[in-house]
């Protein structure tokens, strides 16, 4: 603690050079931007990969370099990057880093040095992952679930280097996420400003906080499976690898349990869905409340729903394994828990809708994205109820119905929140508004486009079109109309993909040319809008920490002239909407 850390503090709060200010920075806001830009870069790679896959599905053979191996490699990298390196990193490392200290009224994360390390480990994990494109044999094509034995057996692309780099990269990512997570949790618990009780925190903080707890407890499962698989691959152990004959040769493996890997993987994998979803829930609650100028409906219920979802998410994992075979009672148990978790989730959707009900809805770009999120998430959630039931899941498993379901619920829905949130907080981060016209264009293309891509996939799934196939020609049960539909989906996917350039252009253009935003362009109540400077300076609050007198949702308080009351306004100046909080 002593001297070394005093030195750290010096660099933290009086950054002298470009390097300490923007590169080796310990300021949570700079780290947040570093995390976000890196995640967006990774996301663009994954987006390009999805376009290439869609080309192969919609126009088989049109791009000659996509052979079976390449398809599986693109698919695997796409899935893993989207889930881990884009969404998880962006929500926790990006939004978490930026918003937690500001919304709690803290000067920074409590351990700035660790926070910086977290980013650099994350960057390292991305570099390791991307380097697998350039090694002999290329990246792994095992599917993002990495199931052994195929993930490390001959015949799967990338078993030489790709799979090893993938697992090392994941291990490094987990270390990064843990260092970040320690900071987020401790900051929320121990660094809130005066008057900021837990139940006065904006739901954004709650969502990210509980998601971080999930990450801290679920990532170890991925870590365990990655380490043990790495042992099997590199040291010839048989944790997961059964006795096997591969290409006519008996392998040295003996007696391992592939199902064990699946349990470990999904013990991580299902909470992972909520690691992505809970921050999205939190952020979107704040978007809706702010732009509908109404207190969030059922604040405490929303908090408890987040907590309940977090707890339940640890007891549903085997709904991903119905087709792997299990004791029928287990199937019953996991189907039941899966349906139970739908209750707090549905409750959140009702509360968002009730918040909108008779609100003064401003159809700003963030609000458009928030509304689109509700629709998309609802759709994906409903198909989840289908897949949660064993008897319904068996025929639908591994079809495009599943692809449609998870893209809706954890692909598109969170991405819509990411966009909405960037349009919402960009003015605070840069001091300028994003261009509204480009924003609306981007929104409509993305929203209608993604629906057009994924809605028909439910139907393809009912037809029985299997997922994770490289070529769909010459199957009797797939009619010509399905192929036409696939071509159509591909065209739309390409349009949606290219239209993201609008967004990138907007980010870049508005940074220099955007309308100056002022400190609080949306007339919002939470602390980050009340910083003395915009963008907030080092230490965030100038001389004095803010003092909080109320929750974050005092919009349209009766008898108050303005339609919002910031959290720092004392009760003597404006009544408090919800005294219970």
């Amino acid at each position, binding site marked *: *603690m*002593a*001297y*070394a850390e005093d030195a750290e*503090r010096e660099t933290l*709060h*009086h950054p002298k050079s470009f390097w300490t*200010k923007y590169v080796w920075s310990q300021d949570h*806001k*700079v780290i947040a931007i570093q995390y976000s830009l890196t995640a967006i870069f990774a996301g663009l790679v994954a987006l390009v990969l999805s376009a290439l896959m869609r080309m192969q599905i919609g126009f088989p053979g049109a791009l000659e370099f996509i052979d079976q191996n390449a398809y599986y490699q693109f698919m695997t990298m796409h899935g893993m990057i989207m889930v881990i390196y884009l969404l998880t990193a962006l929500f926790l490392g990006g939004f978490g880093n930026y918003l937690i200290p500001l919304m709690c009224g*803290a*000067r920074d994360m*409590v*351990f700035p040095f660790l926070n910086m390390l977290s980013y650099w480990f994350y960057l390292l994990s991305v570099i390791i992952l991307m380097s697998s494109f350039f090694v002999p044999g290329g990246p792994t094509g095992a599917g993002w679930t990495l199931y052994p034995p195929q993930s490390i057996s001959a015949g799967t692309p990338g078993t030489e280097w790709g799979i090893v780099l993938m697992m090392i990269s994941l291990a490094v990512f987990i270390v990064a996420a*843990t260092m970040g*997570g*320690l900071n987020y*949790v*401790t900051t929320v*618990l*121990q*660094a809130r400003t*005066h008057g900021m009780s837990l139940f006065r925190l904006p739901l954004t903080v709650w969502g990210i906080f509980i998601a971080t707890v999930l990450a*801290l*407890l679920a990532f*170890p*499962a991925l*870590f*365990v499976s990655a*380490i*043990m698989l790495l*042992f099997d691959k590199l*040291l*010839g*152990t*048989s*944790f997961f690898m059964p006795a096997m004959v591969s290409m006519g040769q008996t392998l*040295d493996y*003996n*007696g*391992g*349990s592939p199902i*064990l890997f699946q*349990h*470990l993987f999904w*013990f991580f994998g299902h909470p992972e869905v909520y690691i992505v979803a809970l921050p999205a829930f939190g952020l979107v609650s704040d978007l809706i409340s702010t732009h509908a100028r109404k207190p969030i409906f059922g604040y405490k219920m929303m908090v408890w729903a987040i907590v309940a979802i977090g707890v339940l998410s640890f007891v549903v994992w085997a709904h991903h394994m119905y087709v792997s075979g299990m004791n029928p009672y287990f199937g019953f148990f996991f189907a039941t828990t899966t349906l139970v978790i739908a209750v707090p989730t549905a409750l959140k959707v009702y509360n968002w809708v009730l918040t909108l009900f008779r609100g003064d809805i401003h159809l700003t770009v963030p609000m458009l994205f928030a509304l689109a999120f509700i629709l998309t998430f609802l759709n994906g959630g409903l198909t989840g109820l289908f897949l949660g039931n064993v008897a319904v899941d068996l025929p639908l498993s591994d079809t495009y119905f599943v692809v449609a379901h998870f893209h809706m619920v954890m692909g598109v829905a969170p991405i819509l929140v990411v966009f909405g949130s960037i349009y919402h907080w960009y003015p605070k981060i840069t*001091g300028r508004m994003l261009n509204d016209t480009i924003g609306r264009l981007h929104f409509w293309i993305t929203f209608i486009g993604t629906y057009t891509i994924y809605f028909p996939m439910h139907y393809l799934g009912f037809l029985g079109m299997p997922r994770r196939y490289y070529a769909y020609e010459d199957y009797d049960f797939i009619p010509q109309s399905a192929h036409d539909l696939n071509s159509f989906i591909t065209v739309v996917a390409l349009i949606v993909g290219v239209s993201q350039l609008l967004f990138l252009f907007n980010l870049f253009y508005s940074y220099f040319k955007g309308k100056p935003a002022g400190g609080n362009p949306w007339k919002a109540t939470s602390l980050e809008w009340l910083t003395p*400077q*915009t*963008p*907030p*300076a*080092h*230490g965030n*609050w*100038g*001389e*004095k*920490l803010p003092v909080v007198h109320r929750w974050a949702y005092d919009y349209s308080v009766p008898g108050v002239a303005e339609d919002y009351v910031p959290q720092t306004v004392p009760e003597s100046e404006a009544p408090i909407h919800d005294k219970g909080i």
Partner: protein
Amino acid sequence: MNVSAPQHHPNFDEGWDDPAIAARRKKTALQVMLAVITALFFLFTIAFLIRAQYPDYESLAAPWQPLANPWLLWVNSGILLLASLSFHWAVVSARSENINATRDGLYLAGFFTVMFLISQLWLWQQLIALGYYVNSNPANSFFYLFTGLHGLHLLAGLFLWLKTLREARGGLPLSLLQSSVALCATYWHFLFVVWLLLFSLIVGDQATFRAIAAFCGF
């Protein structure tokens, strides 16, 4: 980005970073970290219990196996216990404001920890010399995995220890030193308990694991 930083040292206003608060934050962080490590070893234990039920599992402590008489493991456990006790002594000394004794306690704790690690490595070497490689049997695989990971956690702990030692030698205010030493001690006690768990998994026999697994329903 705007850079009009506040003029005075922003960390020291309104208790944002006074020593008591800093200590509390570190304590919270340690508790969270221990929860994470618990999750990690819990999952390893589950994986072990599942894998150990397969017929090819052959415990290293079976009568014909090298650890049939696990005296070396007991010795190592004793060394680690001494490290833990030394930390405890350091905590007590720091509390009674005896800097010298605190420092000695820290030195001893570090010494026993390094001893433990060396002794574990020596055990590895013994087993390898006897032909018990990491891939010869799942029991061996788990043995190397468990001892290795546990050792890595101790190694990471030694960084904390080094920092605390530097503080003790550099004359840090006693209240701060007390909290640093206490945090280290907690971590070591925790890793000692983890070691006992791993020890029992290494020497336990298959029938017991089957019974536990059956009891838990898998």
